[in-house]
């Protein structure tokens, strides 16, 4: 603590008048006040918090409570000590063998005597709904209740596997001698894949063994032919089943003609997005060399008309 002199000097430097005033405090206090104050304060503290140590927790748990707590919780989760099990656990084992059905019987006609009304209501459900309520509520629900909306022709699913095998397997491994359904099916027309591959190798085109593409193309072509020719045929014949002359006409198409058709379709299949593929394969240098003679203004004008100018690699 600083010396009183230093403080007095400081004070006198600021104000000689104030520095000259006595530091005696003129206030009076009750006699014996400071003697009683510690007891007064301690009594106030004792009323509130001195009974327990300040740091002790307010609540206590029995010793070892948490040791078995996890096991108790797990046992209850597993249902061992559910409502019934908890009672059984506390009861002697003999009680587990005893049924909980009440053995007492009520004399016959007791409920009827007690209250005829209650006797009638006792065996009836409290709630009922009008007959046919759900049918009126929603036709959709009614149909759903009865089963699926869509129907499959009888025997369709049984013959489906054989039909698929008939269309697919003979093209690769030859005709199926005994279809699964047991029905003999005429061998389908076969596209000689080896010859196609040989010709393609000879012409510098590699087949890559994607035979299923050709079969798909053939199916699509046949479908398209049927779709476009069917209205005319239908008008002439007046509707009904496919005319046999179309089937005969298809059978008259030679393998070579079909091969030529497939070659044309192959170009379409392998290059369906040729433009975008070419764009992706070209690097920026190639683009610039191609567009080297085109001015930026022309490119800008082209992009404004056909696309975003941001995508344009200018010269």
């Amino acid at each position, binding site marked *: *603590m*600083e010396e*009183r002199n230093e*403080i007095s000097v400081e*004070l006198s430097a*600021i*104000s000689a*008048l*104030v520095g000259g*005033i*006595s*530091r*005696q*405090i*003129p*206030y*009076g*206090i*009750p006699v014996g*006040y*400071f003697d009683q*104050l*510690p007891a*007064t*304060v*301690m009594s*106030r*503290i004792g009323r*509130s*918090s*001195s009974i327990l*140590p*300040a*740091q002790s927790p307010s609540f206590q748990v029995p010793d070892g409570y948490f040791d078995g707590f996890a096991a108790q919780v797990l046992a209850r989760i597993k249902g061992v000590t559910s409502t019934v099990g908890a009672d059984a656990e506390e009861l002697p084992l003999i009680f587990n063998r005893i049924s909980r059905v009440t053995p007492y019987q009520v004399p016959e006609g007791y409920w009827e005597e007690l209250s005829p009304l209650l006797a009638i209501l006792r065996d009836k459900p409290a709630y009922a709904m009008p007959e046919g309520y759900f049918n009126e509520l929603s036709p959709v629900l009614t149909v759903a209740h009865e089963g699926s909306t869509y129907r499959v022709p009888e025997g369709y699913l049984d013959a489906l596997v054989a039909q698929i095998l008939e269309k697919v397997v003979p093209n690769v491994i030859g005709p199926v001698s005994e279809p699964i359904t047991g029905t003999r099916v005429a061998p389908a027309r076969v596209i000689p894949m080896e010859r196609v591959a040989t010709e393609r190798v000879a012409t510098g085109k590699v087949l890559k063994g994607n035979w299923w593409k050709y079969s798909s193309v053939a199916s699509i072509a046949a479908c398209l032919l049927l779709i476009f020719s069917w209205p005319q045929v239908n008008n002439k014949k007046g509707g009904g089943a496919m005319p046999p002359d179309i089937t005969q006409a298809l059978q008259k198409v030679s393998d070579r003609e079909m091969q030529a058709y497939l070659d044309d379709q192959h170009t379409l299949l392998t290059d369906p997005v040729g433009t975008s593929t070419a764009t992706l394969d070209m690097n920026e240098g190639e683009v610039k060399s191609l567009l080297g003679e085109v001015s930026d203004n022309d490119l800008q004008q082209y992009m404004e008309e056909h696309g975003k100018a941001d995508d344009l690699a200018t010269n």
Partner: protein
Amino acid sequence: MGVTIQDTELLLQFREPATREKAFTAIIKKYQEKLYWHIRRMVVEHEDTNDVLQNVFIRVWNGLDNFREDSQLYTWLYRIATNECLSYLEQQKRKSTASLDESESGLSNKVIADKYFDPNKLEWKLQLAIQQLPEKQRVVFTLRYYDEMPYEEMSRVLDTSEGALKASYHHAVKKIEDYILNH
């Protein structure tokens, strides 16, 4: 430094449950007069001072376990007492609808109402002049003038820089001088 060692011993005893109340009683006895007068100069009346002082010691009891001895116990006690005084005065202001000037004149009236008040004595004029000061200047002046507290320690009590405290003390002394000369 003997006082500090005793404080350390008292704190050790306080942390022992067996000697807890005894140690706290010793702390009260040691600091009650200093804190009482510090509070009394702020709130003037004895009854108010008694209430504030008891509240201060109850706060000390509740917080002494968390006292980390980074500062001296003496400084910590003054800090609590000062904050309790300022809170009390703030409550008094809110209770009354009076303005700040009326509140200060209320404190002056309390000085005048003291049964020992003598308007001819310079000590009483000084008390009236102190009540005219803003609260912060009043605290700084009384801690320096009566308690002879160094600025460094006062800085820890009031969380204020030493330079600001010196300036505040200077202004307070000048205002008191003006008051005494003009009354």
